[in-house]
């Protein structure tokens, strides 16, 4: 049995790695991948706390795991639209550097 602290620390580190990628990288695809890593950290937390709740209270409720499935599906939809937007941006500006795509800034 792995204690809950290990899972929480693992998901925290995963989140931090994703946040570092979002904050430092300029390539929009890498930023999108980093956002996915952060989302997966949240998913690990959902599964961990759902299992922990089951272990503590004996309710045998798997809602956290089910919500994780929904979260993964929504992440897939997000990636589909995000990649399409990046493709469209590259066609127009010949770059996906997030520092150079400033059309939405004001």
């Amino acid at each position: 049995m792995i204690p809950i602290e290990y899972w929480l620390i693992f998901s925290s580190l995963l989140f931090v790695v994703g946040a570092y990628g979002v904050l430092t990288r300029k390539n929009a695809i890498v930023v999108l991948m980093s956002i996915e890593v952060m989302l997966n950290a949240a998913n690990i937390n959902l599964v961990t706390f759902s299992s922990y709740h089951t272990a503590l209270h004996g309710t045998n409720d798997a809602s956290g795991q089910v919500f994780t499935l929904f979260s993964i599906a929504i992440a897939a939809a997000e990636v589909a639209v995000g990649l399409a937007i990046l493709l469209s941006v590259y066609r127009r500006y010949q770059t996906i550097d997030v520092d150079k795509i400033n059309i939405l800034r004001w």
Partner: protein
Amino acid sequence: MNGSIVRGLAVLAMALLFIGAIMSVDWPSGDIDQTTNERVGQTLFGVSSDSGYGVVVLLIGLLLLVAIMGGIFLAKEEAE
């Protein structure tokens, strides 16, 4: 370059904050490996006709369809 170091340090501070907060809690011991796939399936689709998340699964499928259609529309090459 300097900004990258500052961001790295900020992220490191965030990691230490997370780990410190987690370790400061006295978690009651519990075996977290008990949930089975069968239980996940029962929660997802329900054990009777009026329980579970079957409608949500259908809506998620619709969302994925709309997302992929939107993606195709956005990525489509414009006519010359």
